[in-house]
């Protein structure tokens, strides 16, 4: 404060010094500029200095204007006494009339009633002559209603103010005591030009507030902003707004307004003090403060509500558990485990999340001697949650599928769960189970197009083309514009056509293509049909027709990179050499660098193709597109597009492209965790071998991803860091493949892992591997290495391997469960 005052003194002195050195013309220009800019204090100093040099009337007027502006500014800041002082200085220095409306208002607001009445009495005639009589009447109407009846003595008895006051007062009293008819009668008697006219509107609006809010709002709108009664309309309007708006407006109100508005709104003083306490928490309350607020006010908020919400806060603030227990009683095991599961979901690894929900399900089952239907539904929901959380980042397995089947037992009316399970079984190639579930779903939902669509897809997966077409027709009868089924139907005919081409049955193939054309609706689909036809014509030696179909198919499927991809894939599907088909098609020459749009269209197409196609075929097709894709890394992609591109290259095993794109992205967005991950991960070979610098980069990226809430990248980097530990144990601890306590690093599953295992098993490998081959045989050693290197191996699995090896060939070995949970445990009944 002292510093502030010093600063102000300094600036004032500085201002004065600068004014001293100015010529009168320059000083006048500066004074006017200050006035124009609303710098009234500076304008007052400048004009006073000018008036010291010459008493020019024009400058005096401008000084009075500056004084008035300064007084208004102070009054708006609530510095009412200071504002009144400025008015008095104005009157004295500029020889102006003191009893102006703003000054009289200031006297009233500062409680100087005697001074106010005396001034009005002395200056009444002058006020009237200046045309302020209507204002004075309205102003005095407020005073007299506020209880200052002495004001009436200032006016003759026949003045509207004195005449209408008894009517307004009687109406007010009638309203307060709930006598609306009496109020109406009194209000009707108040004439239109009365100084109580606005007060009449306000009382009328108040009486309508409960019954006809819109009419009340209309009446309040009619009260002019300049009316002395305007504060009533703003206060009443504020009382009728939403809670949030009211809370915002409440801040700007004075004590009297707050009382008035809160009464109309129906809030008690206790509620109001809680509202104020709540405001201090801010828009995004700190969890600890929020928890304490909830617990402190459990009586007002309701104990059940507080318990429900306190538990929610605990998910983000586990340390508050003791506080909750103290206030609301100890948490049950179920409550504690549920909160823990939700906490683990925030930053746990997939198997931790799975296990947390699994524990909770078991806790519920164990706690129930007589389960009721609600428990079954709870269990079904938690099992589904557990499975969904797992499937967000991990593939399905027997345990997961078993849990989902159990969820259906507890909640058999869950149609989306049937669809999900059928889809998962199909993806796992467990078609028998998929069909079993499909039969159940179809018996429950025979006309559901989503279930029927699954029926089409499952039939296709079993190569039952006719059955698929039958289901598809049924679906289209129910939903004629179902594009997915149309697509499936076209695909089915195309698959059949390819089969006929491979068996040299051209006639049958043409028939299938014709059928496919009947169902096709889009240019892209017609393009794909053209490409199959091109393969047919080519195999039939119809080169001219083949080339026409190639071109048409290429154009219709999107041209550029996408059209080429479709052509190459179609060649692969019909077992034609890709290079020769590409040559035969005579497509327009591919530029050395693709455009941004072409690349984005290609990754869209790759996303669609990847799920259905053989990876090696896709890899072969992409070989033909490497040149334009490599040079396209430097194009102006957005960060999100770059992320998508890196993810696509990861999924397709295109490590060279992934490295290039991640490196370019890091130049544009340095140290972005996701690109650090892609660049380092893509550069690794079969065995992860991270340099010290890469480890440091990954550590930093991990912290940044965590801090930014990018948990997916954080997890991926954490896994990479774990796997990046030296593969072989130190020299003094020889590597023993049967030592399951050794912390063996993991390799990502897939082709790379298999190639690495091949290299270990080939020829004369390390002694431990040779011993493994001797003990378990080649296939047993392969399975064991796969288990060890993918991190999914335990001692119990050894028996599985030996059992499987003992089983006759062709019989499928039982699948291992990644989350170690037996679905049978989830039996509630």
């Amino acid at each position: 404060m002292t510093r502030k005052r010093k600063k102000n003194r300094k600036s004032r002195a500085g201002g004065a010094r600068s004014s001293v050195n100015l010529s009168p013309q320059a000083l006048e220009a500066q004074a006017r500029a200050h006035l124009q800019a609303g710098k009234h204090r500076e304008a007052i100093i400048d004009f006073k200095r000018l008036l010291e040099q010459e008493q020019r009337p024009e400058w005096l007027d401008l000084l009075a204007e500056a004084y008035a502006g300064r007084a208004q500014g102070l009054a708006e800041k609530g510095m009412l006494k200071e504002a009144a002082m400025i008015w008095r200085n104005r009157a004295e220095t500029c020889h102006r009339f003191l009893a102006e409306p703003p000054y009289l208002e200031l006297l009233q607001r500062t409680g100087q009633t005697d001074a106010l009445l005396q001034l009005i009495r002395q200056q009444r005639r002058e006020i009237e002559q200046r045309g302020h009589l209507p204002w004075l009447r309205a102003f005095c109407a407020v005073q007299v209603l506020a209880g200052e009846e002495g004001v009436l003595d200032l006016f003759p008895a026949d003045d509207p103010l004195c005449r209408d006051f008894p009517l307004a007062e009687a109406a007010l009293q009638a309203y307060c005591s709930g006598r609306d008819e009496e109020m109406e009668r009194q209000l009707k008697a108040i004439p239109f030009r009365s100084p109580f006219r606005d007060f009449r509107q306000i009382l009328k609006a108040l009486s309508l507030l409960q019954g006809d809010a819109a009419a009340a709002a209309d009446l309040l709108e009619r009260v002019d902003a300049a009316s002395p009664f305007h504060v009533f309309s703003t206060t009443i309007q504020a009382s009728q707004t939403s809670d949030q708006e009211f809370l915002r407006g409440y801040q700007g109100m004075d004590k009297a307004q707050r009382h008035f508005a809160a009464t109309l709104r129906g809030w008690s003083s206790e509620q109001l003090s809680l509202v104020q306490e709540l405001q201090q928490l801010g828009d995004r309350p700190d969890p600890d403060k929020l928890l304490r607020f909830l617990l402190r006010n459990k009586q007002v908020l309701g104990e059940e509500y507080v318990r429900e919400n306190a538990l929610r806060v605990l998910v983000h603030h586990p340390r508050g558990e003791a506080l909750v227990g103290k206030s609301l009683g100890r948490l049950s095991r179920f409550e504690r485990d549920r909160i823990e599961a939700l906490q683990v979901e925030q930053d746990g690894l997939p198997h931790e999340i799975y296990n947390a929900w699994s524990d909770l399900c078991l806790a519920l089952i164990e706690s129930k001697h007589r389960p009721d239907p609600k428990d079954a539904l709870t269990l079904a929901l938690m099992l589904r949650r557990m499975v969904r959380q797992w499937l967000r980042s991990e593939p399905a397995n027997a345990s997961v599928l078993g849990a989902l089947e159990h969820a259906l037992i507890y909640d058999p009316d869950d149609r989306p769960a049937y669809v999900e399970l059928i889809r998962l079984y199909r993806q796992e190639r467990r078609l028998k189970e998929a069909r079993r579930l499909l039969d159940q779903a179809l018996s429950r939902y025979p006309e559901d197009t989503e279930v029927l669509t699954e029926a089409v897809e499952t039939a296709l997966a079993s190569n039952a083309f006719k059955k698929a077409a039958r289901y598809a027709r049924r679906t289209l009868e129910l939903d004629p514009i179902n594009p997915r089924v149309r697509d499936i139907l076209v695909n089915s005919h195309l698959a059949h056509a390819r089969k006929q081409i491979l068996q040299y049955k051209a006639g049958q193939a043409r028939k299938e293509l014709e059928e496919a054309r009947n169902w096709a609706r889009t240019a892209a689909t017609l393009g794909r049909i053209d490409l199959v036809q091109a393969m047919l014509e080519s195999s039939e030696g119809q080169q001219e027709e083949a080339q026409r179909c190639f071109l048409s198919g290429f154009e219709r499927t999107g041209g550029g990179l996408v059209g080429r991809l479709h052509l190459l894939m179609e060649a692969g599907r019909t077992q034609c050499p890709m290079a020769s088909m590409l040559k035969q098609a005579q497509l327009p020459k591919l530029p050395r660098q693709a455009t941004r749009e072409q690349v984005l269209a290609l990754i869209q197409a790759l996303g669609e193709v990847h799920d259905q196609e053989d990876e090696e075929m896709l890899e072969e097709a992409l070989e033909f597109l490497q040149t334009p894709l490599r040079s396209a890394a430097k194009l102006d992609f957005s960060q999100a597009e770059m992320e998508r591109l890196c993810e696509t290259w990861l999924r397709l095993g295109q490590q060279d492209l992934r490295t290039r794109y991640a490196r370019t992205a890091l130049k544009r967005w340095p140290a972005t965790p996701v690109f650090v991950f892609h660049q380092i991960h893509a550069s690794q070979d079969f065995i992860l071998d991270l340099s010290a610098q890469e480890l440091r980069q990954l550590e930093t990226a991990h912290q940044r991803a965590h801090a930014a809430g990018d948990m997916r990248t954080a997890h991926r980097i954490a896994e990479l860091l774990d796997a990046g530990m030296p593969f072989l144990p130190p020299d003094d601890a020889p590597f023993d493949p049967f030592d399951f306590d050794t912390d063996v690093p993991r390799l990502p599953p897939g082709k790379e892992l298999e190639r690495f295992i091949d290299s270990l098993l080939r020829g004369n490998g390390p002694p431990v591997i040779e011993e493994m081959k001797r003990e378990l045989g080649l296939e047993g050693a392969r399975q064991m290495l796969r288990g060890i290197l993918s991190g999914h191996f335990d001692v119990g699995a050894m028996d599985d391997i030996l059992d499987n090896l003992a089983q006759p060939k062709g019989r499928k070995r039982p699948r291992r469960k990644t989350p170690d949970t037996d679905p049978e445990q989830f039996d509630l009944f």
Partner: protein
Amino acid sequence: MQDPYLILCVPRDATDEVIHQAYLTAVHDYPAERDPQAFQAIRSAYETIRTQKLRLEYALFNTDPPTPEDLLQRLGRERRPRRPDLGLFRELLRSGAGETKS
């Protein structure tokens, strides 16, 4: 996400029917063309709790702590609007009224 029960003004143990009625009333009071934001909030609240299964799902898995708006609404759930008495009128007339905007 705001508490769907508070948005629809229904108790925690409300039935499907009660929730549906509350939803219809709310969308009538806040039609999409007049207040799209409020309409969207009502719609989303209804979709969150319209069936018993959804309500159980909300109770089991929702982790959103109450927002200040939720608490404010909860605090204001038992409102008893009253007419201001003469004292309140006089207080407001003395403090705020009479002030005009020049």
